[in-house]
C-alpha cells in the first residue's frame, strides 16, 4: 500500500492510499497530490539512503510520497 502524506501541525496527515492496480484510488491520490502542489507544497520521494527527489507528478510505484513546505533562510 502506497501513501501520500502531508507534514502539518498534526504531525502528518495521510491524504491518500493506493495500490498499483487500483485505478480509482490512484485517481483520488493524483487529485489530492495536484491540489497540494497547487497550495504550494513540494512532493518528495526517497530514492535511497540519504537521497530524496522532488517530483511534480505522483510516482504511483513509490511507497511513500511526502509533502513539505518550502524552506527559506532564517
Amino acid at each position: 500500500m502506497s501513501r501520500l502524506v502531508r507534514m502539518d501541525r498534526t504531525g502528518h496527515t495521510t491524504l491518500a492510499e493506493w495500490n498499483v492496480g487500483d485505478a480509482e484510488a490512484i485517481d483520488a491520490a493524483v487529485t489530492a497530490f495536484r491540489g497540494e502542489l497547487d497550495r504550494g507544497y513540494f512532493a518528495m520521494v526517497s530514492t535511497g539512503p540519504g537521497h530524496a527527489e522532488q517530483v511534480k507528478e505522483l510516482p504511483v510505484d513509490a511507497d511513500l510520497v511526502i509533502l513539505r513546505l518550502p524552506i527559506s533562510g532564517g
Partner: protein
Amino acid sequence: MDAARVRRRGALWTLTTFAHVVPFVAAGVVLLVVQPLAVAVSLASFAHAWIIPMLYAARGANVLRPKRRADADAGAAATAVGLLGDLVDHRTRDLYAQTGLVVERGALGAWAVGEAGAVLLTARGRRATCFCVRVDDPDLPPADRTAHLLLALRADEVGFATVANMAFSGARWRIARRLPAEMRPALTAAAALDRVYDTAS
C-alpha cells in the same frame, strides 16, 4: 554554494574574526605598555577581543538550539517523530532521540540538522559552518521541521546551503561548548562521519 565556496567563505570568516580580535588585543597591549595606569581600559579592550568571537559562535550554536513553544501538542510531536524516524536508520533515530538532531552525510560534508538550521562539518570534522534555515509554518511540530530540512537537504544539498543564511564558520569546539550537553554527541557523531568519509575518499 559548492564545496570550494564553503571553504572560501570559511576562510573569510576566520579572517574577519582575526580582524576583530587583533586590533583590540593590540590596543590593549600598547595601552598597557604606554600607560600602565590605564590597565582598566586595557582589560576592557581584551574583553572585547574575547567577547566578539564568542557572540559569533553563540549565534552559530543558536541554529541548532530547540525553539521553545508554549502551545506544543505532545500528540502531534510524537506523530512527527514517527515520520522522521521512517526517514533515517536505527542509529540516526537513536541519536535523534538523545540529541534532537539528525546526522546526515552529504556531498559537502557531514550535517547535523535541527529544527531551525543545520551545521556542516568539514575539514575532517574540525570546521563547523552553521546555516540558519526554517519552514514558514509556526505550528509545525519540531520533528516535522527537522524532516522538512532533511528532505530539502537530501533533494538538493547545494540549493539548501545556498538558500540558508550562514550564521557562523569556525572551529567545531567553539560551537560545541555553546550547545546544551545533550546535543553535543550529535556534533561529535557528525565530525566522526566526516572523518570517515574524508579518509575513504
